């Protein structure tokens, strides 16, 4: 496992457990069509929260509201008490489709460096930080390649490195592993878990995969209904040491999985309410 380099100063989860991102009665409508009903949740500092729900439930819409990319129709989102109207500097987003979220005309290193250009950091420091972030995700040998010369899993690692280099306190991920094969997917899941523990960042990840949600989460937010509302918020208590095989074969994991599955299944499918 990589050790954190001395130059990186990720905010310690000094107040772990305290509310970082607060969502209050959030609703989103497109015209007369209400996608999100009345969603309230507090994301705690240092936790891994997965948002899971049936496809079409507006998970991506919710994430975009959380990040300030789109304004909610009602309710509010605040980061440490400050209302989120645009993506805050303490937040980074990893988008679902890596093939479209990376700039094809920039090298891997330049892609990761780009967000740092919005800060006033000297160029040499930017390069150092970007390189460190790429080392963190295991891409030290691919700095000068173009993203499209890498495999899908590696491209998503570039996108993750870009988020890390931005040194956020909270990372939002929108179905980040949806378009890679199963083996790569578990590798990336473990990488994400490791980064979260390693760097003390808070992660909110949207997925439709129940196994993934349970495996990664400290808490799982189950969405359902029409319009979409919070069905349940489950603490997993799976601890920090997780393993794709042993964790997933525990009775506790099976129980959680069944519970989430049931909660999603009993919800009317979107469009049939």
């Amino acid at each position, binding site marked *: 496992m990589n050790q954190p380099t001395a130059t990186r100063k990720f905010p310690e989860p000094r107040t772990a457990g305290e509310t970082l991102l607060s969502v209050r009665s959030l609703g989103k409508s497109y015209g007369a069509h209400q996608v999100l009903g009345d969603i309230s949740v507090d994301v705690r500092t240092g936790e891994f929260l997965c948002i899971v729900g049936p496809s079409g439930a507006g998970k991506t819409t919710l994430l975009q509201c959380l*990040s300030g*990319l789109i304004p909610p129709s009602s309710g509010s989102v605040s980061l440490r008490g400050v209302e989120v109207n*645009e*993506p805050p*500097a303490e*937040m*980074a*987003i990893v*988008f679902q*489709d890596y093939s*479209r*979220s990376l*700039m*094809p*005309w*920039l090298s891997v290193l330049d892609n990761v460096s*780009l*967000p740092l*250009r*919005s800060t006033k950091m000297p160029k040499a420091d930017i390069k150092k930080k970007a390189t460190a972030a790429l080392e963190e995700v295991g891409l030290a040998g691919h700095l000068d390649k*173009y993203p*499209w010369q890498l495999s899908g899993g590696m491209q998503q690692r570039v996108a993750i490195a*870009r988020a890390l280099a*931005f040194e956020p306190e909270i990372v939002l991920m929108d179905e980040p592993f949806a378009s890679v094969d199963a083996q790569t997917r578990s590798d990336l899941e473990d990488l994400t878990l490791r980064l979260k523990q390693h760097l003390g960042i808070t992660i909110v990840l949207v997925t439709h995969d129940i196994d993934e949600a349970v495996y990664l989460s400290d808490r799982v937010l189950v969405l359902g209904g029409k319009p979409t509302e919070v069905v349940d918020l489950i603490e997993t208590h799976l601890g920090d040491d997780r393993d794709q095989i042993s964790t997933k074969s525990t009775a506790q994991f099976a129980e959680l999985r069944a519970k989430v599955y049931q909660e999603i299944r009993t919800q009317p499918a979107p469009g049939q309410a």
Partner: protein
Amino acid sequence: MNTLKKIAWELWLPIVLITLWLVLSAGSTSFYFPPLSKIMEQFVHIWFFDGIVSDLLPSLQRILLGFLLAVVVGVGGGVLLGLLRRTEEALRPLLELLRSTPGVALLPIATLFLGVGQEMKLFMIALACTWPILLNTIDGVRSVEPVLLQVAKSYRLTLLQRIRFIYIPNAAPQIFAGGRLSLAIAAVVMVVTEMIGSPGGVGYFVLNAQRNFDLLSMWTGIIMLGLLGYLLNFAFRLAENRILRWHHIKNA
């Protein structure tokens, strides 16, 4: 070996044609079509190096300045109009009309306002060259992947950074396509404006030679124009291959 093969493959037809011209025109006594060997002799005599200094360099300077001006206006205006969707929609019919008007149609009025000197020539070249670059830049700026704009927003890139790292690179392949078209147009407009304008330039040289019944010199001027156009296009492709390397490898 491969490069040699490639060069040979590209060169065989021109060599055959030139040889044919050389052989078939060898005994020509026609006033209008002198033997190529004579033309070549005259070519060296006229152009090396007096002609290059007095006529080729001014033409080259004109075409490059006019083209550069068109790139600045075309890319700058294209980015602006690409970003201001409503304004562009309102201006679109006007732009299409102006683009469809042959550039040289404005020659009479341009000479009225700007005379027959350098200003008029540069203006005419730049004007005719701007349209393909401008319209292609607008399209290129419009076609940016929306996810990239969300990325830019989430990482708080400034407008200038978005333009530099997203809009212009995204539009670059189309800007170059427009630029290549513009360069060909620039050569045409340069010759035309030189033919009606003040002395100096290869276009003026060709017309002047013809008026003096010096057809041998006229032919050397025409050949020089051909070479100039070819070399400009060659240089342009070199620059394109360098700047759009990612695009060419990606689509190879």
